[in-house]
């Protein structure tokens, strides 16, 4: 089958890239030091790539809208707001004193509580549609964003550099303990959701057809939203705001696999997400020597590749 062979190809590509990432530049003098660190980064890349790809796929299916990413819910704006707020009010030293542990747990906690409150408020009445939930999310996101950019403009340029480091996702200083916590949270959520791929296929037909075919729409969508919120919060707090990756990954994935079945779409998007992150990290680290954030590389290459795919499709047909 075409889809399966493409998935196989993607997996092989991923393995090659991962091996390249581990081995490149390794020699007997440094492997004791470098290998464990590279393994750590690789694991966090898999984790973040999968979380983002996964949550965006599910999100687009639920909302039936191919240009949205979970960032519409305002979670990354909230994250940037928390970070900027702490630096702005207390100075960058506090972030260091509190340690990354506390920052991680507090950020994830705040984001998850925020989104659960949002969903609770929204799904308590039957009348509320997903449309108004998203509008609500956009409004709150803008609210946080305007406060954030206001504080950033007022900020001392040296303090701003601390915030700027958090504005761009980075895999370079991930704390080991935090990574384990994140893995635990993410894997549990992923396993929970994988049972529901068929329901997702049906949901992608739209609300009415889904209800007609016997899916408990409201409660299902609500559960999926909470899962998405957890995944996005974990990956954002781990490496920084990176949801735009999701948009590129999911759309490239849909172009390549050309299927509606989530049984294939989900693993496909996870593979592509990890491939793009490892590729981006390879370029950022080994070729650019950390002179540019990884999101810049991914957005550039991913964007160009997507436009190329669309143009190619037009020419063939």
């Amino acid at each position, binding site marked *: 089958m075409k889809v399966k062979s493409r998935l196989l190809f993607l997996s092989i590509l991923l393995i090659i890239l991962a091996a390249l990432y581990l081995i490149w530049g390794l020699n007997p003098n440094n492997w004791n030091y470098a290998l464990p660190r590279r393994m750590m980064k690789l694991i966090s890349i898999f984790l973040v790539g999968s979380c983002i790809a996964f949550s965006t796929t599910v999100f687009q299916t639920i909302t039936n809208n191919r*240009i*949205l990413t979970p960032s519409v819910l305002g979670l990354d704006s909230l994250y940037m707001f928390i970070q900027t707020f702490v630096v702005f009010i207390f100075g960058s030293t506090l972030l260091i004193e509190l340690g990354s542990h506390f920052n991680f747990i507090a950020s994830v906690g705040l984001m998850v509580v925020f989104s659960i409150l949002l969903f609770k408020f929204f799904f308590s*009445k039957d009348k509320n549609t997903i449309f108004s939930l998203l509008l609500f999310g*956009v409004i709150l996101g*803008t*609210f946080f964003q305007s406060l954030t950019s206001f504080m950033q403009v007022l900020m001392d340029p040296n303090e701003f550099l601390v915030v700027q480091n958090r504005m761009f996702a980075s895999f370079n200083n991930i704390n080991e303990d935090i990574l384990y916590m994140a893995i635990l949270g993410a894997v549990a959520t992923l396993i929970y959701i994988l049972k529901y791929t068929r329901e997702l296929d049906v949901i992608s037909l739209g609300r009415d057809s889904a209800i007609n075919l016997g899916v408990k729409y409201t409660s299902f969508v609500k559960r999926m939203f909470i899962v998405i919120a957890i995944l996005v919060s974990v990956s954002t707090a781990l490496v920084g705001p990176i949801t735009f990756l999701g948009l590129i990954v999911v759309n490239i994935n849909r172009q390549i696999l050309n299927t509606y079945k989530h049984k294939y779409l989900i693993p496909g998007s996870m593979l592509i997400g990890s491939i793009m992150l490892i590729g981006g990290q390879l370029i950022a680290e080994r070729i650019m020597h950390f002179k*540019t954030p990884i999101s810049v590389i991914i957005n550039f290459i991913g964007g160009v590749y997507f436009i190329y795919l*669309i143009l190619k499709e037009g020419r063939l047909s």
Partner: protein
Amino acid sequence: MKRLILILVFLSILSIFIGVKDISFWDIFNLSQDQIQVLILSRIPRFISIVVAGAGLSICGLIMQRITQNRFVSPTTAGTMDSAKLGILISIIIFPGSSTLTKMTTSFIFALAGSFLFLGILRRIKYRNTVIIPLIGLMLGSVLDSITTFFAYRYDLIQNISAWLQGDFSMIIKGRYELLYISIPFVVLAFLYANKFTVAGMGKDFSVSLGLNYNQVVTIGLVIVALISSTVIITVGRIPFLGLIIPNLVSMYRGDNLKKSLLSTAILGAVFLLFCDILGRVIIYPYEVPIGLTVGVLGSFIFLFLLARRRSYEG
């Protein structure tokens, strides 16, 4: 509708006569030389640019959302903002000492070039559908933005550029806002094409069967959006909400017929922006709060309230 126009007139008068220099409404027939200067150099340009920006951006949002049949598309989705940003970066790097007007012109040229690149890509796609247009815009925007960030990161210009694009009316004086006039004919054009956009908003097949030249209407819509939003972004900066939320609110109350909703959208945009601007000028008088902040904070509360009220009507 009538109420909206009344509010607009009231706020306009208020906007012109509020400020550090004391000018009262009743002095209008015997203004001193000083007062005339203030009015001509600062107050009136500011007022005009607020109205044009408010009305223009909300109209752009509405057109974009109709054409793409997607309520979450904003006028900056066409990559306009990112190309303007690239233009600002280039002008800062290449001619650092040049005047603001040169920088604005450079970035305007970039914004236009970006928009035509966007249209050019769209033209090459055979099966244009409503998903593809915003997707291509977003992707092109992300490519341009990554180029900008790449260089801005190296030259430590990120804070500088974000300050440029932070919406701000306090810098608007005579000689710095005239670029905005370019957008006025396109606002008029938008009104002339309102009916066609409504039809195009019903989908390609339907509109072709009604005898509409679908591709042409879509292209005209995109050109209007690109020109208006690039002039506004460059002269005023990024203003949240206007393009996304205002069209959605208006269409909740007035439906999707552009002929009916276009004027309300434009007026609501202008009223909202005028109100936020006046508030920003008064709160810490004689200083000012940036418009982006008042719009973002106040707008959130107003719109959340409207959304909640709207729901209780239905429920």
